[in-house]
């Protein structure tokens, strides 16, 4: 072989390649005329034929017994036009009811332990070794209590809700939901698979936004991404459940409280679905015009859920994951809360000034300054809204005798104690309802916003996805509050 330099060789090599690839494409074009247009179909046809042949030779179905009888019977009921939706709502309501009832006792036990036992113990130690008050405050009253709070408020409902939801998923119910919802989404000009991304959003909006990749059409995928925030995420479930328990559950006789609370939470979740449809429809009729594309959705066989396995993975995958994320965000937030509550300017704490400033706006939309400030502090994670609200309420109302003083996330023995604080803070049923609405309709958490940007690579769509729900929430709460005040 002649010796040529490496560079020369490469040049020749690539030149040849360029020539070759054009030749190949040209030849393919010529030959395509010869074989005719039906090639694609005939190849598919022969694949199908072979598959069916092989199946015939290898699969035996027992005579006089039909396959899939159970599955198709169940499908007839779960996806029926008449019963599909009522069953869906019933299942949802049952899941929430079990969550609400089941989380109560462990929640109290955890908060007793973390805040009633550990917190005073930590304070005692810190006093004994003489740690300066601001370090003690920042770390024990700020960071520790914020984290403990998040665990007490979030862990029990998540530990019940996620396994239940995962069992439904494992059983094969989600695709049936998607099937039921498909018609609605199609009429809204969105993709039927949006029902699946929406269901993912009920766990975590960031996950739901990523899941929108299953939708091929960019237009429909954008709609799915923008509207995912209307699915209540797990950071918001505890808020909904707690506020519904205090303000809705107390409106009815005690034995019915659990049902009323579950119904209210389902109501908010359904409202979220309705908004998701309305906004999808609006987008597909205006900025994201187009036809809904067709797709095929396979209804998988029902599978008996593996209870233990599901418990384990849903605890590891979801509960611990979400909890960890909440703590990571709650710890610094606890520090911030302690600081704004304890740094005084001209005799009043910073928090006082901010709350005074935000109060008029908050009241106008049925909320109050505390909630507004809490939502600003809680931008990184919705999970810490309720702890922040409670802490700031104590601070703003100057309640004494509860917890350790200003800027301290205190212990709460029960839902009743929480209710007492909120009522003392001037909360009414209107505040509760507006908070539930606002919790559904406000900007996504910063993780979701960042995920939306990563998925869309567009500042514009990220901004729309961020501010559209916020604007909707403010407008809706405003009208509810104004009408409420006129009527009552």
């Amino acid at each position, binding site marked *: *072989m002649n010796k040529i330099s490496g560079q020369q060789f*490469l040049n020749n090599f690539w030149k040849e390649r360029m020539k070759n690839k054009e030749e190949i494409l040209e030849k393919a074009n010529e030959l395509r005329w010869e074989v005719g247009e039906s090639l694609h179909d005939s190849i598919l046809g022969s694949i199908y034929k072979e*598959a069916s042949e092989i199946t015939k030779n290898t*699969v*035996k179905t027992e005579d006089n017994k039909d396959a899939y009888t159970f599955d198709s019977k169940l499908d007839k009921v779960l996806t029926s036009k008449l019963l599909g939706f009522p069953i869906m709502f019933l299942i949802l309501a049952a899941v929430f009811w079990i969550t609400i009832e089941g989380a109560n006792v462990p929640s109290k036990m955890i908060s007793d332990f973390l805040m009633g036992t550990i917190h005073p113990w930590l304070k005692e130690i810190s006093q004994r070794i003489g740690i300066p008050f601001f370090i003690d405050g920042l770390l024990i009253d700020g960071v520790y209590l914020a984290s403990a709070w998040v665990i007490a408020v979030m862990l029990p409902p998540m530990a019940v809700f996620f396994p239940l939801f995962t069992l439904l*998923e494992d059983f094969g119910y989600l695709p049936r939901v998607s099937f039921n919802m498909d018609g609605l989404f199609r009429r809204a000009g969105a993709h039927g698979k949006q029902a699946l991304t929406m269901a993912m959003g009920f766990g975590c909006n960031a996950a739901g936004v990523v899941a929108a990749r299953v939708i091929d059409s960019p237009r429909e995928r954008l709609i799915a991404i923008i509207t995912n925030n209307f699915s209540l995420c797990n950071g918001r479930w505890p808020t909904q459940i707690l506020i519904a328990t205090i303000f809705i559950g107390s409106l009815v006789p005690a034995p019915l409280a659990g049902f009323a609370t579950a119904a209210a939470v389902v109501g908010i979740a359904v409202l979220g679905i309705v908004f998701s449809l309305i906004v999808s429809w609006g987008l597909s009729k205006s900025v994201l015009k187009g036809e809904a594309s067709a797709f095929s959705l*396979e209804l998988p066989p029902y599978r008996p859920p593996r209870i233990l396995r599901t418990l384990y993975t849903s605890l590891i995958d979801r509960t611990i994951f979400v909890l960890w994320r909440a703590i990571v965000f709650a710890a610094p937030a606890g520090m911030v809360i302690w600081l704004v509550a304890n740094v005084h300017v001209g005799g009043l704490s910073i928090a006082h000034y901010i709350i005074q400033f935000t109060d008029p706006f908050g009241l106008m939309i049925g909320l109050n300054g505390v909630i507004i400030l809490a939502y600003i502090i809680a931008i990184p994670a919705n999970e810490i809204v309720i702890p922040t609200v409670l802490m700031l309420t104590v601070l703003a109302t100057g309640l004494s005798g509860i917890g350790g003083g200003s800027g301290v996330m205190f212990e709460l023995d029960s839902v009743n104690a929480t209710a007492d604080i909120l009522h003392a803070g001037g909360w009414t049923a209107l505040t509760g309802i507006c908070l539930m609405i606002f919790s559904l309709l406000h900007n996504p958490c910063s993780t979701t916003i960042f995920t939306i940007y990563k998925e869309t690579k567009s500042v514009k769509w990220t901004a729309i996805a961020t501010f559209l729900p916020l604007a909707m929430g403010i407008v809706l709460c405003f009208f509810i509050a104004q009408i409420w005040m006129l009527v009552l």
Partner: protein
Amino acid sequence: MKEINSCETCPVHNLANLTKLGVNMDKFDFVVALAGNPNTGKSTIFNNMTGLHQHTGNWPGKTVSRAEGGFKFNGSNYKIVDLPGTYSLLSTSTDEDVARNFILFGKPDVTLVVVDATRLERNLNLVLQIMEITDRVVLVLNLMDELKRNNMEIDVRSLSRELGIPVVPAEARQKKGMDEVLKYIEDVAKGNYLCKPRKIKSISPKIDTAVNELTKDIEESFPNLPNSRWVALRLLEGDQSIIDAISSGEMAELVNEQDIRSTISE
């Protein structure tokens, strides 16, 4: 006398030799692609092998991008790639592109195709297409428990004979059949089992001639492409993504490195 469990002495009983490596896969000897229809249990099998906790769920389309993990088996390191589930490799959607590009361009040492045993016929469509691209295929007949529940039976041996590749019945959710899956992955990766996959029968002599002619050209230009016949067929069909892959040079990039090296050293 203690009775010897015949299973434990059988070479198939291999789970003891499996080390789950999670995401630690700096060095690997073989690449395994995990393909199949949506919702057949690919992610469950992936988790069984790697010890990772990819979220699994009973709905199609859950895995949206590919996930990678590693395991060590009988002294060799394997990288396993969980591909999104697809019904075919022919039409174009993002999932199908991800799956097809990996099987075609990623040149996995073994492609593990997971099928739903209760829906064999439809699942076989994908299997047949994958076997057109690569020879080294192991079929996992998953959800065998469902099959029994639905009063059906599959003759595993004749299925393996018909397809010309190893077929392993499994119940991934119960971790049943995993040891055999591992053994066949090893056998095929190391060349101890030579797959002779069934190819789609020719459709007409005219098409055959055209395909052969084009295949020859492609083989000359891209000698390291293991599946030039398939590329030829796709080109004849006018598959835009393959045309693009050739004209953009992607196809050349895939094969060129080894190619140049072998030519220079001549």
